[in-house]
């Protein structure tokens, strides 16, 4: 008799002995937890043996359990290899889960407010153990997800898997692609750095162009929370990023996968004809059961993919963090995230409303409707010439437009600003000014000029001495000195250029780059010379002033005007003398600031 009013584990122990009772207890718990498989069943499955009892316990978790209720209990053998799916759909789902987990960790340390968001980033990087690691994982996961989802779509296109009966699967897939882009884009703003602010400003300004004007203006206000992106805008992007878009994404992931299961995975084109639905008709000899084969494969891929991501963020990738967002300062060469470059490129073609709104809408609308438009009855490439042509045209157009979206393309700044920018720009887009990574001990206080590089080997000193003489006599030195001490508050009294220290090889390279650029743009920058002045600002802090002095030439519509002799036309003052121009910029370099070229750049 039990001491309790119901039979308990103690009764079992009394009845069967301790050992047996324990084993049976464990077995029962395992069977309940797996919704049907006991320890012996699991052991057999993992050994690759056939199930030893009937009904097949490996089908039970699909029938009775929640976690596997949507997974098919077997797959067709032809879709379990690398081809035709390349695991792309599975990988997309992996990234949804991966981004959710890393994102929740980041949420713990983040407040969506312009006052503290950037400080939160710094804290994640410097005060949270493994904070940078998680941030890097989240960022690389986001970029990878965009890539993988796009590749998944391309794969479905090439194998013509979107055709009947899977049209709606494709349709929901395009919605998931849009969600992925939107998620990635809304997350872009959250660090509240310059990169974020300006990429999102470009994106949001496209929404402003939506016709008619009253719609565009109000949509823009709704998204940004004001005329400029500020506290309201940041909060809205945050809520989009962590709440609305993920919620929709989960729902549509469910819809998409449900459709995949209902129609079965699409077989390679040669094995399945249009209109055939393989799900319920997999011959017995082609069945690969989920437990154990697919399950172990998926768990293996979770391990392998995670390892790859961890390796990438350990050695090869760090999420960028630029300087604090500043609506007053537009960085030169601002671009959208790479997956939106094609829209930015399209915008350079002309009308903002057409290229910024109507064109992308048509593009995505066409993608969604494609399975309903392309109803040709074959999946073979030979029979899909029109579709393949359109597909390749779209891929080519996206590539060309993306290239056009780069700031290198079509955006004209004056040559002097561009050259100084190349020398001094703060790190952005895996790119930084040539002067930043010069080792601190090479920044020897002094004044150096690009003229030195025009000298023949060994003749540097006399050339620089002659240069000092020359700029003193023609007054250009005084002009430069005035600019540097007046507008730029540089604390020097006179100019005296010297040759570079022999061991300052990196500084030499930067100066060579400077000279090279001046030569490249010699038409715009007539008789130009440049230089770098290094002064000590504080203990451990140097100031680097770089400047260009040139003779102005006539420029119309951003292009140099050439005279009859084929030479650029100089601009002359009242006395017939060339008009002189100076442009200067400066940066400060601290000995501990550790600017390294980004990996891979």
């Amino acid at each position: 008799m039990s001491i309790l009013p119901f039979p308990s584990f103690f009764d079992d122990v009394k009845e069967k002995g301790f050992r047996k009772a324990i084993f049976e207890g464990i077995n029962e718990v395992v069977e309940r937890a797996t919704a049907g498989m006991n320890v012996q069943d699991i052991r057999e499955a993992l050994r690759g043996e056939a199930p030893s009892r009937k009904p097949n316990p490996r089908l039970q978790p699909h029938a009775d359990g929640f976690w596997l209720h949507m997974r098919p209990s077997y797959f067709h053998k032809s879709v379990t290899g690398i081809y035709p799916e390349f695991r792309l759909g599975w990988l997309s789902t992996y990234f949804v889960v991966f981004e959710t987990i890393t994102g929740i960790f980041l949420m713990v340390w983040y407040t969506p407010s312009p006052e503290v968001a950037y400080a939160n980033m710094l804290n994640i990087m410097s005060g949270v153990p493994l904070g940078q690691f998680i941030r890097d994982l989240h960022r690389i996961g986001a970029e990878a997800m965009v890539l993988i989802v796009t590749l998944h779509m391309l794969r479905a296109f090439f194998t013509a898997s979107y055709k009947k009966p899977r049209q709606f699967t494709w349709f929901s897939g395009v919605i998931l692609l849009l969600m992925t882009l939107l998620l990635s884009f809304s997350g872009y703003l959250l660090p509240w750095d310059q990169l974020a602010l300006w990429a999102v400003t470009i994106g949001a300004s496209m929404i402003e162009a939506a016709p008619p004007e009253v719609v565009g203006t109000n949509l823009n206000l709704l998204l940004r929370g004001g005329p400029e992106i500020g506290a309201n805008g940041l909060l809205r992007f945050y809520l989009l990023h962590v709440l609305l878009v993920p919620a929709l994404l989960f729902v549509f992931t469910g819809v998409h996968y449900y459709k995949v299961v209902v129609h079965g995975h699409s077989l390679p084109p040669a094995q399945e004809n249009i209109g055939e639905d393989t799900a319920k008709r997999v011959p017995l000899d082609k069945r690969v059961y989920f437990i154990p084969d697919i399950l172990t494969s998926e768990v293996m891929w979770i391990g392998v993919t995670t390892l790859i991501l961890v390796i990438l963020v350990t050695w090869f990738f760090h999420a960028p963090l630029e300087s604090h967002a500043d609506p007053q300062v537009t960085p030169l060469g601002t671009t959208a995230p790479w997956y939106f470059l094609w829209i930015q490129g399209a915008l350079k073609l002309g009308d903002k409303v057409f290229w910024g709104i109507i064109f992308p809408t048509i593009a995505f609308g066409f993608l969604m409707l494609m399975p309903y438009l392309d109803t040709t009855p074959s999946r073979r490439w030979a029979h899909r010439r029109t579709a393949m042509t359109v597909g390749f045209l779209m891929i080519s157009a996206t590539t060309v437009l993306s290239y056009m979206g780069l700031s290198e393309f079509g955006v004209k700044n004056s040559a002097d600003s561009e050259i100084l920018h190349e020398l001094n720009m703060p790190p952005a887009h895996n790119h930084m000014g040539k002067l930043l990574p010069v080792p601190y001990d090479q920044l020897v206080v002094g004044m150096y000029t690009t003229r030195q590089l025009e000298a023949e080997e060994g003749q540097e000193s006399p050339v620089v001495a002659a240069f000092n003489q020359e700029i003193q006599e023609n007054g250009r030195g005084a002009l430069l000195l005035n600019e540097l001490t007046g507008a730029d508050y540089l604390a020097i009294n006179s100019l005296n250029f010297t040759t570079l220290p022999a061991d300052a090889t990196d500084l030499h390279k930067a100066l060579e780059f400077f000279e090279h650029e001046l030569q490249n743009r010699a038409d715009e920058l007539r008789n130009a010379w440049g230089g770098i002045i290094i002064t000590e600002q504080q203990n451990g802090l140097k100031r680097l002033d770089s400047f260009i002095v040139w003779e102005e030439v006539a420029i119309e519509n951003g292009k140099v005007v050439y005279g009859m002799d084929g030479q650029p036309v100089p601009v002359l003052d009242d006395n017939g003398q060339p008009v002189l121009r100076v442009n200067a910029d400066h940066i400060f370099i601290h000995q501990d600031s550790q600017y390294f070229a980004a990996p891979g750049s």
Partner: protein
Amino acid sequence: MLQRLIFERIEQRVLVGTIAFLASMALVGWLAINEGGRMASFEVQYTARSIERGAALFAVNCSECHGPNGLGGAGVAPALNSPHLFGHDYLAVYDRELITLEQERNNPATTAERVTEIDARMQELQNERQNVINQINTVVEAKPGGYDPENPSRLDDLAWAGSLRAFVLTTLIHGRPVSANYWPRQMSAWSQTAGGPLRMDQLEDLTTYILNWDRGDNWTLDDLAAVNQFPIKPVDPSTVVASDVQVIVPGLTDANANPEQLDYAAIDAELANYTGDPQNGQTLYNGALGCAGCHLNAAVAPVTEGTWTRVQELRLQDPANAGLTGEQYLEHSILHPNEYLAPGAPTGGSYPGGVMTPNFASRLSYQDLADLVAYLKTQDQPLP
């Protein structure tokens, strides 16, 4: 091959998965072990870049008044790159030893022999200490604002109870409205929260940069000598006079001064009895009166350099000034500047009136005025 190995055999899949999982864990473990170092190095790097950004902000926003190297502008704003701000005590090394010796001397157990020894050492220290004070006084003698080696800390002068960082940051946030009483311009509020142009993180960067001037125990007398301007302790502006002798016309203030109160003929006649000392004039010009503060920047006022040449060659050629000598022109334009606005402002036309105070008749004695004119007559550099 790969397909057969990994996809078709379950034990291979289990093996690969397990190895991948363990490898990930090992990598994360390795990262975790190094995480402390990485975080510390990020902190160092970030502080360094904060200093860089602060330096860039300082160059644009602060160097006009505080000087490009933070050494202060004579008559405009105090030095920040100065031992005074950081409270460096040049005498501390002597004071510490003196106190220790004093305590030992007062201890009844100290032998008479030792007392004699201590007295000698203390005398020696006192001499050295006095020597340093003398050196400092020589260095700072001509410096405006003044520096007292016995009270070397700005924060102590102001009875500021918080940290230096808080002092600098608070000053940046709210500016120094009261400073208009003893500098030509007040310091404006720089924080967006106080209606200024800069964000808090930028002010933090600026503060980090300014505090990076601290040399700790390594401040030298040369650093003191480099300072252009020390802070001025607050005084009632109406009591600021060049010297305590009789002023020309007492009782004028900015508000009530007008040219009718000045009898130029009588003043000119009286002034003829005085001989100006350019040296003293220069001290007044750069120091107590703060003239140099505005007259060093052509955007604000005609620059000091070449004043006499411009008076002779340009201003006296103006029919409005007919009948004046150069000295008289200078005297009159000091006493009532709004009547003698000089042309040549970079914005076009004359410099604006109402910037220079019209109450100098109540702030200068005849001797002071003569000294100022004498100093300005030395500014005879040729026109550019």
